[in-house]
């Protein structure tokens, strides 16, 4: 019995491999680890924020195979060999994406704690529908909370990016 308990308490671990912002990474993970745990605690990628850890705020949003997902609700083991993109991977060769520029110009961030999640959700939205209407933006982005209340400025930044992308 004691032996069983001891064996049971040894965490099962697994070496997880996936593509992070275009480069291969590996991490030692437990089955209970979320993708957010792995990114923040194991790989020191801190742009996804732990706003709630329950899927309710969107601050941890990352791209998984091009789709916006909540890293806190994503079991780390499920991203094996997949592509994950965080805000750290949005700008290429030090050049900002138009969406990032638009966030800066329109004032899409105040405290900045929601900003990474907002940028990722907006990136996914623009990839899916390059010319969104106001209503589409409201709907698609409604899972991302901003307590500083930057919704209007973020909406303007997204509309502006879409306009310029034409």
């Amino acid at each position, binding site marked *: 019995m004691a032996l069983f308990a001891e064996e049971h308490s040894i965490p099962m671990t697994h070496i997880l491999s996936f593509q992070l912002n275009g480069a291969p990474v590996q991490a030692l993970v437990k089955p209970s680890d979320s993708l957010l745990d792995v990114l923040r605690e194991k790989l020191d990628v801190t742009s996804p*924020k732990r*706003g709630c850890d329950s899927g*309710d705020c969107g601050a941890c949003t990352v791209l998984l195979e091009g789709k916006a997902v909540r890293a806190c609700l994503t079991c780390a083991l499920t991203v094996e060999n997949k592509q994950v993109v965080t805000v750290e991977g949005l*700008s290429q060769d030090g050049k900002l994406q138009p969406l990032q520029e638009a966030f*800066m110009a329109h*004032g899409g*961030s105040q405290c*900045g*704690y929601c900003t990474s999640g907002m940028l990722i959700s907006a990136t996914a939205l623009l990839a899916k529908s390059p010319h969104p209407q106001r209503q589409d933006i409201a709907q698609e982005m409604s899972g991302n909370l901003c*307590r500083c209340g930057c919704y209007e400025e973020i909406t303007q930044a997204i509309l502006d990016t879409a306009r310029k992308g034409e």
Partner: protein
Amino acid sequence: MNQYIGKAMPRYDAQGQVTGKVRYVDDIKVPGMKCVKVLRSPVHKGEIRGLDFSRALKVPGVVGFVTAQDIPGKNAYGRFQDMPVLAPENRVRYRGEPIAAVVAADEDTALEALSQVRLDIEEQTPVFDMFEAMQPDAPLVRHDSKSNLWVHYPPDITEVTMVKGQMDEGMNQADQVIEGRYSTGVQDHAPMETNVSVAYRDEMGRLVIHTVSQTIYAHLGMLCAILAMPMSRIRFIGGRVGGAFGGKNDIHTDHIAALAVLKFGHPVKYRLSREEDLQFTTKRGAFVLDFKTGVKNDGRLTACRIDIWHDTGAYAGMSPYGLEKCAMFAPGPYDFPHIKVTARTIFTNRPISSSMRGFSVINGQIASEIHMNRVAEALGMDPWELRFTNAWRDGDQGVTGYKVRGAGALEAMKKAAELAGIKLPDKLMSMSSRGRQAS
């Protein structure tokens, strides 16, 4: 001439924000860092009969517990020095009040340890309605106080009073007197960044605390008193916060993280989960406000009488200060010749009320402005006109005696009407905050 005042510019750190480079306290990692979690009261009010950590200490990875006995200095902090760091004298006064803290290898271990603590607590009768709490026979939230009312002016004045002119006389001059009772709920700041601290000793043995405090120097002073340490022994690092809205005007994690470092020596992180932050940190507390307004048929306000009750929860937080602010500004930006406001702060067995965006002014204003629109309705007058007639001009006097300078209420209203596409009569548009000519 380099001119920047008045220039719309992006945030200085905007590029850092949109590239994910900005570092917040929760992004800090220190080698050997342990996790702190807090054991909280499961009851609204009670006395702790037994607290047994023996089973919890056997959980692999547990370093130990911090209790009130480990506090080298004062087990009290806050603007009014009445909030305990950890349950004092084995008493708890609201559900979620911190009793002890565990230090462990990681969060799972810490939570496992907390579940193994044997807490024997004798539940006592709580009181939740502030009106009930004011009754002479109500259970006392604070066993050592005479009543559930905060003493605003020692030794025994529990009522805040603010007076301008002769309220009764003003009411007598009125053609109509309009009354109303209003109430506001309990709100959480819910900044996207929950309260968090990272603490450790530096190479000089100084205590380093990374904080999300809004009011660094006030909190540093409080920490010195709790830890019985001089300021030069504490390096208190802050400046960047992921939203606060008044919720980080009170210490929530720094003190406990610091105590953990002092006792065990390990670097620690103490971060509140969203659930803890929502339920157990300071709140915007509830108010009830009674308004009575005297007005002439031509719309000139003659007097107002306001009565305010504020539920501060189990401790004062910054509420007494906020209550005074509420009382001071509840009459609104209007030239009342006669005002009387009375207000009180009342303890109940719920989480502590303290500052939040619009701190208590918001509570007075929402009641006052709904009421003002009811006054306009009673007079059959346009709400804009009622306000243009009575809004402060330069030189008008507030209830605490100050003279208004740089008044801008009329200018704000004119612009709002214009942006809303509302055409105001020329009579109103020709008025200005610079003076009150007969209209």
